[in-house]
């Protein structure tokens, strides 16, 4: 059964695209407080575009995106981040030329109180001790797994209410994938709501409370993660085994 918690993030009839190419054809979805919701689907189904539309990198051409009752469509990405909707994009985008510590501190750009920023930095270092060790290195010189930790740690510096994670396991060794998923679950248990895009559907469904399956820019199916995971036809048809 889906949780009865209030809806924090809601998309209704969202359409969006790049130039003349329309990537989303009316997406409806809801994320409730404290949930982990996963977006599944083949390459090109519109998962990444959905996240970009929520965070404001792509402008919705129709429909509405609301966060805690406020309309997000038309706001600048930096304002949406300020509201607490924090997007960790595909490929991690660690800032080259900035040290690990500087990457983290910039994650707290919207945090005006330096004391709070220091506390959060300490928290990120305690979650990911390797980042403390490498804090003075150029962020782009970290390994893939370390960069993923940095990307998540940086997002936590905001104090996110909703975390949009795009392919956090991409390019990681299997052991690190499990580690990353464990971190996501721990974060969720501290109260962060998570919308997760993931290629590894089986793993994502094990972690998530609820799932949406996208196909060619529309929601094809939705349901409890357990139900979706149990349905072999779904797994075969949409999740590429």
């Amino acid at each position: 059964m889906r949780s009865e918690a209030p809806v924090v993030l809601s998309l209704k009839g969202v359409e969006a695209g790049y130039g003349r190419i329309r990537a989303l054809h009316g997406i409806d979805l809801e994320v409730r407080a404290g949930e982990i919701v996963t977006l599944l689907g083949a390459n090109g189904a519109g998962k990444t575009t959905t996240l970009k539309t929520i965070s404001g990198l792509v402008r919705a051409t129709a429909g509405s995106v609301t966060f805690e009752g406020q309309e997000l469509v038309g706001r600048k990405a930096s304002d949406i981040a300020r509201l607490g909707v924090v997007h960790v994009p595909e490929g991690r985008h660690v800032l080259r030329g900035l040290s690990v510590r500087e990457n983290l501190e910039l994650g707290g750009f919207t945090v005006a109180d330096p004391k709070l920023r220091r506390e959060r930095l300490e928290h990120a270092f305690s979650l990911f001790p390797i980042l403390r060790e490498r804090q003075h290195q150029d962020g782009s010189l970290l390994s893939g797994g370390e960069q993923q930790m940095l990307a998540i740690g940086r997002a936590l510096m905001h104090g996110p209410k909703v975390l949009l994670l795009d392919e956090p396991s991409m390019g990681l060794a299997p052991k690190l994938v499990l580690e990353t998923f464990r971190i996501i679950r721990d974060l969720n248990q501290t109260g962060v709501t998570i919308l997760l895009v993931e290629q590894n559907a089986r793993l994502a469904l094990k972690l998530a409370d609820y799932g949406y399956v996208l196909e060619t820019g529309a929601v094809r199916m939705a349901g409890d993660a357990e139900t979706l995971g149990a349905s072999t036809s779904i797994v075969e048809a949409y999740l590429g085994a």
Partner: protein
Amino acid sequence: MTLTTILLQQLVNGLVLGSFYALVALGYTMVFGVVKLLNFAHGDLYMVGAFIGLLALSLVAGAVGTSWVGVGLAILLSMLAVGFFGVFIERIAYAPMLKAPRLSILITALAVSLVLQNGVLSLTGGQVMPFSPKLGFAGINLGDIFINYKQIALAGAAAVLMLALELFVSRTQYGRAMRAVSVDKDMSELMGIDVNRIIAVTFFVGTALAAAAGTMAGAYYGSIWYFMGFLIGLKAFTAAVIGGIGSIPGAMLGGLVLGLLESFGTQIPGIGSAWKDVFSFSVLILVLVFKPTGLLGKSEQERM
């Protein structure tokens, strides 16, 4: 004079010249970093800075005179006024072109350059105007070489400005945000950084440094005119390329290297001071051919 004396004297001259180049090159490279624009109007903002500096000097002259304090105040006032002017230009001329093809914004920059030059030309009638602060010609003798107090003060002021910039860029959140915007605009937005505001801050800082250099050059050489920004714009561009365009330490280094190359270059038998500019631009071509990323520039490769 012995050869050593000549070389030492040229070292001093080169460092002073180089610090002007470096100040102007910094604005070039910072603007290139955040909006990937070669701001050909940058040299003209240096020129505008010199005129505003002269205006400011005449305004404060009654209160503090036109000596060291007056010139210092004129530099600060010119930095402030021209800094805002740079932001204004960015808003009306460049911001609407940021999404357009690169060539459009480059042509816009050339247009801004012409507007500034011709604007000052018509306001001043094209006259060379005396910029005569009472800084005197006193100095100190170190062995056989003579260093003017003006040279010490201006090179010192340039060093202080560069140090302040370095601290701003490495220690403050806005400075870090500026570096973030220059490598990844989308990610910067996702971190809550208002990219347009950072671009405005960058234009302010870059233009203010050019204005400081313009006022300092006025005080150093003693006269200013509407065309004074043209050549230094090209020289600053050269300095930025030598150091690695987009790199802030690179612009500082490139400016000093170019200043030193020029003042030593004129001492090579057969290359008189008339060939100074040919010498500089040959260096630019050599750098572009053999090390296009410059001394401190990084290639654009990214690790996955």
